[in-house]
């Protein structure tokens, strides 16, 4: 079943759109300016109007995005494929891995609203399915390899990337296209509101003043494949474990998060001291930041630089795996770890302080944390130091 072992694949093409911009360079530029406060939109919830904080994709005019989904996918994936420079035959054989928590539910919502308004008998979720986004991508880009759609909440595209990299290492395919996408929709906005997880100000992970999250829209795409350039970023290791402590929060003692970090470092054949910097999940919710901080402190005797990207782009849920990885890698290629001035400036609260200004960084090994509803914990280790 296993093909000949291949070299670890590199990230040979990326595309990105989020609150910071609609190109990779524009998004990375935004990391070197202080995070901006979120916008708000009005949402009817149970007969009341609520102000929902969010970070829409750059250029988006309103809260909901059903008509933009496929345009955004087209633009972002095209950018990744173009940069990768794949020949048509190579692209055709590439495997597809899509991660999202909502997939095309915005399209379903629009159809449902239309049916209700027109008086037609509504049939919500008609021919719906998680894999319809993947079907669209396959048809649009003429992909004939296998396809996988991951619905593991906020770890979805991180898991997609983890399995894609290993599918190439196993010799099953030479190239993989990994996509994470999350656009605003009613279910997500109302669901998070009902859970009381929205911030009344800005996201402040690990900070004494943290009071919740801000949703963000984003789409990211990465092409994985062989690349002999020295210093090319690649996935060096990872782990995915189920935390059965609670449906909506990791174990606050940090044990389950420490376990998945430890397993990811083992998979990367690294000791904690080999980690140059950490990209925290950092949802700015009370319990999850507590658990993440405890987990990191259980593994690291002395924490390396820790940064958080959600203050810049919001919580992009299932897309954050790919999106935050692209942002981090591109910032590091510019020689800097991004900073969030004024957020978790000291470590007195949870034992974790975030980088405040941009911090110079050399090639190294970088840990990325992702934790989601349903006990889904995933950690990835990327490196631009070596590749075997």
């Amino acid at each position, binding site marked *: 079943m296993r093909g000949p072992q291949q070299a670890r694949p590199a990230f040979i093409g990326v595309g990105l759109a989020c609150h910071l911009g609609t190109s990779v360079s524009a998004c990375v530029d935004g990391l070197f300016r202080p995070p901006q406060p979120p916008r708000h939109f009005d949402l009817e919830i149970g007969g009341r109007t609520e102000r929902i904080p969010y970070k829409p994709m750059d250029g988006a005019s309103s809260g909901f995005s059903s008509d933009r989904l496929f345009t955004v996918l087209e633009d972002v994936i095209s950018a990744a494929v173009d940069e990768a420079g794949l020949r048509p035959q190579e692209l055709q054989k590439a495997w597809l891995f899509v991660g999202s928590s909502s997939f095309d539910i915005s399209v379903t919502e629009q159809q449902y609203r239309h049916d209700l308004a027109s008086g037609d008998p509504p049939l919500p979720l008609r021919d719906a399915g*998680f894999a319809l986004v993947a079907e669209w991508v396959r048809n649009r880009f003429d992909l004939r390899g296998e396809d996988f759609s991951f619905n593991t909440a906020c770890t979805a595209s991180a898991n997609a990337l983890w399995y894609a990299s290993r599918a190439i290492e196993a010799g099953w395919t030479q190239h993989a296209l990994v996509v994470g996408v999350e656009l605003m929709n009613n279910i997500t906005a109302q*669901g998070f509101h009902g859970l009381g997880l929205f911030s009344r100000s800005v996201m402040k992970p690990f900070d004494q003043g943290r009071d919740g999250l801000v949703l963000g829209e984003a789409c990211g795409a990465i092409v994985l494949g062989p690349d002999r350039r020295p210093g090319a970023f690649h996935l060096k290791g990872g782990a995915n*474990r189920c935390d059965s402590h609670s449906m909506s929060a990791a174990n606050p003692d940090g044990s389950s998060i420490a376990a998945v970090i430890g397993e990811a470092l083992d998979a990367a054949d690294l000791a904690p001291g080999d980690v140059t910097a950490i990209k925290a999940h950092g949802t700015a919710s009370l319990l999850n930041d507590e658990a993440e901080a405890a987990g990191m402190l259980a593994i690291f005797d002395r924490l390396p630089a820790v940064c958080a990207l959600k203050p810049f782009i919001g919580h992009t849920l299932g897309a954050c795996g790919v999106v935050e990885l692209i942002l981090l890698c591109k910032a590091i290629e510019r020689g800097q770890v991004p900073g969030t001035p004024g957020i978790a400036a000291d470590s007195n609260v949870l034992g974790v302080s975030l980088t405040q200004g941009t911090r110079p960084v050399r090639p190294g090994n970088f840990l990325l944390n992702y934790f989601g509803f349903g006990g889904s914990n995933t950690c990835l280790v990327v490196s631009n130091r070596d590749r075997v």
Partner: protein
Amino acid sequence: MKILATGSYCEAVHEDVPPLKSLVESATGSCVRRIGRFIQLALIGAGRCLKPGTAPAGTGVYLASGRGDLEVTLTVLRDIFERHEAPMPLSFINTVSNSACYYLARTLQINGPSAFATSRYAPFESALRLASLDLENGVPTALVGAVDVCVPPVCEHRQRICVGADATVGEASHWLLLAPRDDPAPALGYVPLVRSFPDRAGLWDWLNTQRRWAADTVLAVGQHLEPASLPQLQAASGIDAVFDYRSRLPCFDSQSAAATGSFLGQPGKARMVHVDGDPSGRFSVMLIERG
């Protein structure tokens, strides 16, 4: 991969769906509260495959489904757009399909990898693929399954899953407990191969390699292939014997998940080649051998 156990639930739905609470309790030995049918179905099938506390803690859960938790997603949509009410928090969380993985892990006392991953025309095969990657990388055992729920009225469900007005629809939960091939536990069977082919030529080349075992092999055809393709597959593989596991099944999205348990559950030839396809001309293959 080695198959250690199988477990399943599959029932046709004619009008109303039957209650599942007692079946969950008998399959898992525990009363799991505040869960919908999708998670109940997952627990019944998986609990019939693996008794709680009997697998290594690092066992992984790999769940596929054509449409996930239709019931809870419909409830949330109707709350928002028809009743103009805020969705219940737990209902919202359960719209994320890996909620079922959480209940499986908690109930069966395992904490390895957990993934809800699927594809439109080969959901179960996709989950098998991911499990095989993890089994080759140190995960001791893998619980792999596919779950599809039916939400009445049945006439609407038929439209939703795109089957004819006279089709019998149903609910299903089919599971395999897998280990690496060199695991010392006794084997019910093996999965020597699960893979796809981008086109007919690749499939035909592979089927031709199966001729040497044809006399001891049955051919099973998945739900997305036209009946007319069967004689062509027989001719390409030299396999005459057909294993029909689908004629007894109601319509649901992940029928191929039923093939392995059905094949191993009755006496017969030593191997099964299961072939399915999709409208774009790709094919998926599962090769199953008896232990």
